[in-house]
């Protein structure tokens, strides 16, 4: 099981009604995995349980072979989570935000400083490094949150709708960064409503509906599962599998 970056087994969570219902999911190390589903399918709840932000009613979460429920600190050490709403502080500057996040993960200055400079540079935030983030656009905040998520060089990066609200240039920067993360041996799990992103970036795609994984595989495997030919787009596949009206 150690070749799995993320493994969810029979994971369940209910908020009055089931949000996630005995979900089984396994993401291999070094894989780019996209989790798709209609609104309210349980994607965010799944990711929050996978990152230890929400306790499941039942089931297990394993991150890089470490049981999240038994040893959350060890499981979180090599994990980063980026929610759809960027977790940044309005009254901190990007440099200070990265200093704090590095402190949270216990990263020393020698390791953190060059990485922080590199990330700010890569995400085109260096010229804004001395401004308070309260004046940032949503895209800038999202990029800064991503820099914070990457400051401790996580092996597993879990992102919830990371491209929402980004302009084309910022979206390209984020996509490049995620691809580079996978190229460097890291693992990415993301949810997105932008199916083109999943189609172009993800090696495997999982489709979730009503808290259950209803389909999983490469795009070709999903096409076959949906009974569509090679010309079928992920959008066609998604609508076919979820039964959503076009």
């Amino acid at each position, binding site marked *: 099981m150690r070749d799995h970056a993320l493994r969810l087994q029979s994971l369940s969570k209910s908020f009055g009604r089931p949000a996630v219902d005995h979900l089984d999911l396994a993401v291999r190390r070094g894989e780019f995995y996209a989790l798709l589903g209609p609104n309210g399918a349980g994607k965010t709840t799944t990711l929050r349980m996978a*990152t*230890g*932000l*929400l*306790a499941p*009613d039942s089931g297990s*979460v394993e991150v890089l072979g470490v049981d*999240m*429920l038994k040893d*959350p*600190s*060890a*499981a*979180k*050490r090599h*994990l*980063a*989570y980026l*929610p759809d709403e960027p*977790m*940044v*502080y*309005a*009254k*901190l500057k*990007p*440099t*200070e935000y*990265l*200093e*704090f*996040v*590095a*402190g*949270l*993960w*216990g*990263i*020393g*200055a020698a390791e*953190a*400083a060059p990485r*922080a*400079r590199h990330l*700010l540079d890569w995400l085109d935030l*260096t*010229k*804004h*490094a*001395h*401004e*308070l983030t*309260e*004046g*940032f656009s949503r895209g800038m905040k999202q990029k800064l949150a991503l820099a*914070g998520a990457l400051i401790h060089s996580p092996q597993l990066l879990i992102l919830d709708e990371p491209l929402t609200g980004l302009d084309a240039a910022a979206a390209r920067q984020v996509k490049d960064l995620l691809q580079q993360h996978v190229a460097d041996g890291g693992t990415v799990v993301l949810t997105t409503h932008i199916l083109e992103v999943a189609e172009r970036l993800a090696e495997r795609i999982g489709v979730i509906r009503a808290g259950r994984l209803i389909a999983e595989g490469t795009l070709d495997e999903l096409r076959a599962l949906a009974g569509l030919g090679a010309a079928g787009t992920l959008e066609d596949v998604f609508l076919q599998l979820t039964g959503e009206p076009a």
Partner: protein
Amino acid sequence: MTKLDGALNGAAGGTWWLLRHEVRMVFSATRKLRANGKISASWLGTSLTVVLQLLLHWGAYLLIPLIHRHGPTPALAAVLATAALLVGVTLMLATALRGSVAALFERGDLDLLLSSPLPAKSIFFARLLGIVVSVAGIFLFFLAPLANMGLLTGHPQWLALYVVVIALALLVSSCAMLLTLILVRLIGARRTKVLVQVLSAVAGALVFLLSQAANGRNELGARLQEMLHGDWSGVLWLGHAVLGQPAPLAGLLAAGVALFFFTTRTTRGFFVSGVQQAAGSGRAAAAPSGGPRFKFARGLVRATMVKEWRLIARDTRLLTQVLLRLLYMLPLGFIIFKNSATVNHAAGASLVFVCASLAGSLAWIIMAAEDAPDLLASAPRSASLMRRAKLAAATVPPLALVLLPVLWLALHQPLMGVVTLIALLLSSLASGIIVMWSGRPGARADFQRSGGGVDGTLQGVSCLAWGAAVWLLLAGLEHGVWLKWCALALGIALAALLIAWGIHGARVGRWRQQSPVGQVKVA
């Protein structure tokens, strides 16, 4: 004026329609203030309002005949009314300044309104009138019962209170908006926001500080006597308006209405440009050369403390609200340093009370109003370590602030200094722990409302009990009495802590279902 008149109708898109929207926003904020968390308290709030109004009317019904039977002479009444009115103006100014900052910088709906076909002058008119309504509303809530009962008991001159409050609200709101817009023009939107927030806080505290300063020198009575016997006719003219004399009343109302229309008609261009400037006010100056510089802290505790202090120090509104509580320490300075021969026991007790209160305030901001709880929860650190770091961030600043007075006390009366120091440490920690255990998560913007919940009450009780315990202990050590009462006060402080612990225990089960794995919420 004709176009404005045309807009003055209740139809959708008209000025009065917009004003209704503004008033709804004001009352919605008030309802939000009363509702705590997810419990909808609208019926409870309305019932309490009705009960309070009935009580105020009943009180006014009893009070007014007494005033007319045994009250002050007309001359003294004018002096007292003038003094009350000046106090009212100061408090109104604080509210109006907050309103003008909110109107320009914080509501966030001006882009929507200004992009609609509504004329800018109607928007400005409605927004300024909304500030007037909010300013007048607070005062009429408490003063209308006097006016109503005055009419009922055969003293219709009390109805002048309605006119005075509305006229003053018009005057003060217009002045506040003019000041804000002029400042935007002179020093830019970002600095204006900071300055006006500070001015608003200072205006609110001014009454207290002046009264304390005057009390310290026993000057309050002297000033009133001076007004009574000196040539203060210009100022007392305002008091005569409060007492219902027609000419001053009409003059005050005319001045208010005139300034209001002057403001709306002549400064609407400033208003629009102010809004445009405010939209870009978050941007900072260009980065210094040489690239970003980092100061990575060693350890989570230090990183957390630095982050929390930066967040508070840079939030001007929050800082002024917190510092206002510190302003109340100033009179303590007089007490401690004036009577150097006979150091007052109350000084040590007051230091403990103020320090513990401040620690509780900071604890609420730092723990209950954490902006990014998910970031902390996703970090590979135990919740208990984070809580300790946050507790340290909340308790260190107040302790540092009172260190000098405590040292002074210790030098002059060592026993008193040691007792006070121990009590300061324990009471500040108790305040922080009470918030940690019983505080409900909230937004920093809600800081002013944070004292109304169970945690605020427990914290208040704890601070008072600690202050009382110190006072009783110091007096007891000197005179050999009151020690059992000191034990009782400490028992009350302990009880507050235990209740908070009980609340924490009751919540843990629920939080475990909704919170991070292996830990409960930081607050």
